[in-house]
C-alpha cells in the first residue's frame, strides 16, 4: 500500500498539493503514481512565469518505457520549478512527497475546494 501523507491535498490525476499560503502551493506526484510509473528517467516541467491551467497538461514524467502527462490540478502561474529533478529525476522514486515539481501562484484559490483530502485519496487509489 502506497503512503498517503496527512496535511496535503490530492488530485485524481495523482498529484499532491501542499499549501504554502492562501494562494501559493507546491505540486508533486504521489508515491502511488511514482510506483506505477517505475524508474523515472526524465521529468519535463514548465518554467517560471509559464501559466498552467486546471485539467490541462503541464508537463510529463517519463520512465524508460512510457511518458505520462502531468495534469494540472489547479490554475496558476509557475513561480519556480524544481531544478534538482532535471539532473536527478530518480529523486521522485526515492521520495515522491519530498520531490516537489513546481511552485505556483494560484489564479483561482477556490479551485482548492475541488481537491481530495488524504482520506478521500486513500479510498480513491
Amino acid at each position, binding site marked *: 500500500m502506497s503512503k498517503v501523507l496527512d496535511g496535503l491535498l490530492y488530485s485524481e490525476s495523482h498529484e499532491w498539493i501542499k499549501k504554502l499560503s492562501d494562494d501559493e502551493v507546491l505540486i508533486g506526484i504521489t508515491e502511488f503514481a511514482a510506483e506505477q510509473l*517505475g*524508474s523515472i*528517467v*526524465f521529468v*519535463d516541467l514548465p518554467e517560471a512565469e509559464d501559466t498552467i491551467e486546471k485539467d490541462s*497538461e503541464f508537463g*510529463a514524467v*517519463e*520512465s*524508460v*518505457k512510457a*511518458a505520462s*502527462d502531468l495534469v494540472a490540478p489547479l490554475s496558476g502561474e509557475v513561480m519556480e520549478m524544481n531544478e534538482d529533478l*532535471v539532473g536527478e529525476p530518480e529523486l521522485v522514486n526515492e521520495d515522491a512527497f519530498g520531490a516537489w515539481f513546481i511552485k505556483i501562484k494560484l489564479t483561482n484559490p477556490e479551485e482548492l475546494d475541488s481537491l481530495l483530502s488524504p482520506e478521500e485519496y486513500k479510498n480513491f487509489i
Partner: protein
Amino acid sequence: MLKIKKTCLYDEHVKLNAKMEEFAGYEMPIVYTSIKEEHESIRQNVGMFDVSHMGEFIIKGPEATNFVNHVFTNEIISKENGSVTYGMMCYENGTIVDDLLVYKINDFEYLFVVNASNIAKDYSWVIEQTEDFDVTINNVSSEYSEIAIQGPNAEAAVKALLNINLDDLKFFYFGNFEYGNHSLLISRTGYTGEDGFEIYAYSDAILEIWRKFVEGDVTPCGLGSRDTLRFEAALPLYGHEMSDKITPLEAGLKFFTKIDSEFDFLGKAALLKQKETGLTRRVVGVELIKRSIPRANYPVYVGEQEVGYVTTGYLSVTLNKPIALAMIDRPFTKKGTEIQIKIRNKMFPGFIRDKKFLKKNYKSKGA
C-alpha cells in the same frame, strides 16, 4: 473475444513479481525490478528473456532450399548446414512482410523464427507462396518454447548451470544439445548487441532451464529492457523501423538482401527499381542535445519543414543521452544535418548521426 495466451513460464514470472502486459496476444513480463537494472545486467553480466511467444515454422521438402531462396531476402543457397541467417520476407512491391532468422538444418529442412505479432500473417503468406514448390510448412509455434540468455557471461553461465560447453559454437550457428532427457536447439544469436544464445525446446525443458538459471543468478529481464537493448544496438523492430509500408533499403537493411547477386527472390525487382531511381527516405540515427525522450512517431523538422518521424527513441541507458532511430526524407539524411524533434509541442534540437550508438560485443570467432 481474443483469448490472451500464456507462455509456459507465466507462473514463474508471476512468482518473480513481474509487471505483466499483453504483447502480441501473450501475457508477457515487461519488467521484474527495473528496466535500467535489467538492461545493465545484460550489458555487464548475464540476463535472460522468456521469448516463447516467438513463432517457429518448419519448412520441409525436396524443394525446400529453392522455396526459402524465393521468399527470403538474404542468401541461403551457399550457407552451411547448422548456420543461422538473418533477413526478411518481402511482398512483390518490396515492402516487408516480416524479419526473421532462418536456421538451415539441411538442404531439405529449415526452421523459420518469426515475430510473435506476425505469426498468423506470416504463416498464411508463406503457405500462399508454396504453390510452385514441393514443400510442406508446419507452424510449430505453440510446441516450442524459447529462452534467450544474453550478456558477456552467457557462455560461462550455460556451462556452469547446464553443463553445456558452447565454446565451439560460432556466431550465427546452432547445434543440438542434450540436457538431462531433453534435447535443445541452441544458437549463438540474440537481440541485444551482446554475446549470447537462444535456446529452443519443449515447455518442460524450458521450465527446468529457466528455474536453473534463476537459481544461478541469471537476471530475468522483461520486454522493456529487450527493447532498450536492441535499440541501442540499432537492431530494427518490425512495426517501427520496418513494416509493410517500408522496404529493406529504406530500413537500411540492404546488407541482408541479395539484390546484387544472381539469385531472384520475391520483391527483388521492386527493390532493384527503388535502388535505381534512388531512395526518397531512410532510417538514420538522431541525437538530441538537451535531455528529453524522443518517442516513436514524434515528428522531425528541419526548420519549418516536417522531414520525418521517430521510429524508436529513448534516453539511452548505456550512453545516458537522448538518441533515436528516425525515418527521414532525403536529402536531410546527411550526417550532421541539424534537426528538431517536436516533443509535447516543444522543439528539441539535435542532429543526424550514424546508428553506431554502441559498440557491439559479439564473440567474433568464426563470424
